[in-house]
Every structure is written in structure tokens, then in C-alpha cells.
């Protein structure tokens, strides 16, 4: 990030603190392994220099909703938004500890992870119904959108009238077809990114200041 953006961010942080602007709680939701924690880490690193949590290939690596507060994101036009990022576990309807054994974990550790994952999913449901002000809905653009989207979550987002940005992640992979996700959600903004490589995240930040401000 260049010097100008950082300078603008400092000024806007100062002004926000001075005028006590409202903070929005933004939940990152999506299926397991869509890249939620990778994106949460990138947002937090880009704007605060910190991180949210570890990333791995094992499903349900994030087993508790993790929150990072007071992140000021500034768009290129100077508008900014203060958010708390809530990185949530992937929402699923089933968790079997045997899945973790396939990744080389011991049985006891696998059972512990599975128990934590069940608690995390229940917690994520609660956050979405009661405490979230806006949603970044992550999908894997190498997968069929209809197979990975959770209709119930879209229903809650729409019934609560929450602002939502759909992120078509993993555009760095050869099989990525983010236009399929765009076609599945014509009524919502869809931003294709690579959370891993950071491509196009500036467009996402721009949209965040517009939608969550």
C-alpha cells in the first residue's frame, strides 16, 4: 500500500476518533475452506498490520468466531468506514470427527476439534441472527455456486436487510469462473478476488466503504 493511502488512513482515523463515527460489525461468512480467514487476515494486516487467526487446509480450522475491532478502511475517494471484522467458522449442518483423522490428527484431537467446530457453528448462527450489521459472503469461484451457497444464510441476510458483498475468491486458480457466481447473484455486488495473492482487494475495500459506511 502506498504512502498516500497510509497518510489518508491516519487522517481519517483521527477524524473518525474525533467525531466518534459509528462502527459496523461485519461478519465474514461462507462454506468451509472458502478462504474466510485468509481474507480476514489480509484486511486486518492491510489496515492495522496485525492478524486474526491461523489458516490451514484442514476444514474447520476456524472453530470460534474471531473478532478484530476498530479497523478503518479508506477508499480511493477518501471516504472511510470503521468496522469490527468477525471471522466465522464455515457454516455446515454436519461435523464428523473422522474427517479430521484423514488429515493425520490423533483421535482425541479430532474429537476435540469436532466439538469446538460444532460450538463455533452454533455461535456463528447466533451472530448472524442478532449481532451482525453487514456481511461479506465468501464463495470459492472454482466451485459451482449452487452447490456451495447456503440458501438459509441468504434468507437471513435478506430478511434482516443486511448489506452484503459477495466475494468470488480464489481467482488465482486455473479453474476459477467468477462469472458463474455473478450470474447466480445478479442482485448483489460480486467482487472477484484472490485473498491469497491480494489481487483485486482494493476493489473490495472500495465497495466496503460504499456498502458498510
Amino acid at each position: 500500500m502506498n504512502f498516500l493511502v497510509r497518510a489518508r488512513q491516519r487522517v481519517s482515523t483521527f477524524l473518525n476518533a474525533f467525531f466518534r463515527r459509528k462502527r459496523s460489525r461485519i461478519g465474514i461468512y461462507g462454506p468451509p475452506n472458502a478462504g474466510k480467514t485468509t481474507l480476514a487476515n489480509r484486511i486486518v494486516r492491510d489496515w492495522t498490520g496485525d492478524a486474526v487467526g491461523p489458516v490451514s487446509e484442514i476444514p474447520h480450522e476456524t472453530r470460534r468466531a474471531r473478532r478484530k475491532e476498530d479497523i478503518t478502511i479508506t477508499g480511493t475517494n477518501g471516504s472511510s468506514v470503521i468496522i469490527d471484522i468477525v471471522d466465522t467458522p464455515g457454516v455446515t449442518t454436519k461435523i464428523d470427527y473422522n474427517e479430521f483423522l484423514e488429515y493425520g490428527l490423533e483421535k482425541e484431537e479430532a474429537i476435540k476439534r469436532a466439538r469446538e467446530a460444532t460450538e463455533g457453528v452454533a455461535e456463528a448462527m447466533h451472530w448472524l441472527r442478532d449481532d451482525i450489521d453487514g456481511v461479506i459472503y465468501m464463495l470459492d469461484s472454482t466451485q459451482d455456486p449452487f452447490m456451495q451457497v447456503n440458501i438459509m444464510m441468504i434468507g437471513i441476510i435478506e430478511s434482516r436487510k443486511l448489506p452484503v458483498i459477495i466475494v468470488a475468491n480464489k481467482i488465482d486458480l486455473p479453474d476459477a469462473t467468477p462469472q458463474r457466481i455473478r450470474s447466480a447473484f445478479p442482485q448483489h455486488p460480486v467482487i472477484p478476488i484472490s485473498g491469497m495473492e491480494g489481487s483485486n482487494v482494493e476493489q473490495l475495500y472500495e465497495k466496503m466503504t460504499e456498502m458498510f459506511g
Partner: protein
Amino acid sequence: MIQGVQIDFLSAERLDRLTMMEKIRLILDDVRSGTIVVLEKGLLPEEQSKLIELTMMEIKPDGFSGIELETYPAKGGNEGFGGFLSRLIGKKSESRLTVIGPANQLKTLKKDQDLISAWVSSR
């Protein structure tokens, strides 16, 4: 004895007579006993969310591992999932036919706007 799987088809009228917790309990008890439940009219998003929450609390190692739950996207033409037009005319997303079963017996093979293809095994 012939092996088989019980499938309960619940009508919209029957579902309408039940409270949220009665619906969820009925579904979870059926599914935990190995029954596939087909709802003529699906659950509201908040009811599904509560069902997932309770399902998570009942998962046990080497026992119940959760549910498979599939439903068609809500009706709304080109608007996809509910969406702007539905909100503009004040129409709530209509929940549609939903199939729920034990995760270790019911697997979704394919799903799109108009088709849910699933595979069921006996216990």
C-alpha cells in the same frame, strides 16, 4: 427382513400448525431415528438457523453426526435468491420443498435452481 428407509412427507398444512420449536423437534427426532423428512413447504431462514444450532448441540462422536439439508433457491425468477424486486413489492421469499436426513445416510449428488439429486442409504 427387507432393509429400507422410512421417508416422511410433511404437508404445508401440518407444518403451519406447529410452532418453530415443535417443527424443529419433530424434524430432529425423525432424522435422528434414521428417517428422511420431506417438507412440502420449507423452513423459514430463522427456523433453519435454529435447526442448525440445535443439530450442532446434538452431534456426538461415533453417534449422530448431523443432518443433510437441501432446498431449492427461493422463487424469484431472474432475481435469484429473493432479491431487490421481491423487497420492492414487499414480497417475502417463498420457502420451497426441503429434504432433510441424517448426514451419514443422505448425500446430495447435484443441485441447481430446479433439481435436487440425492442418494439415500439404509443404516
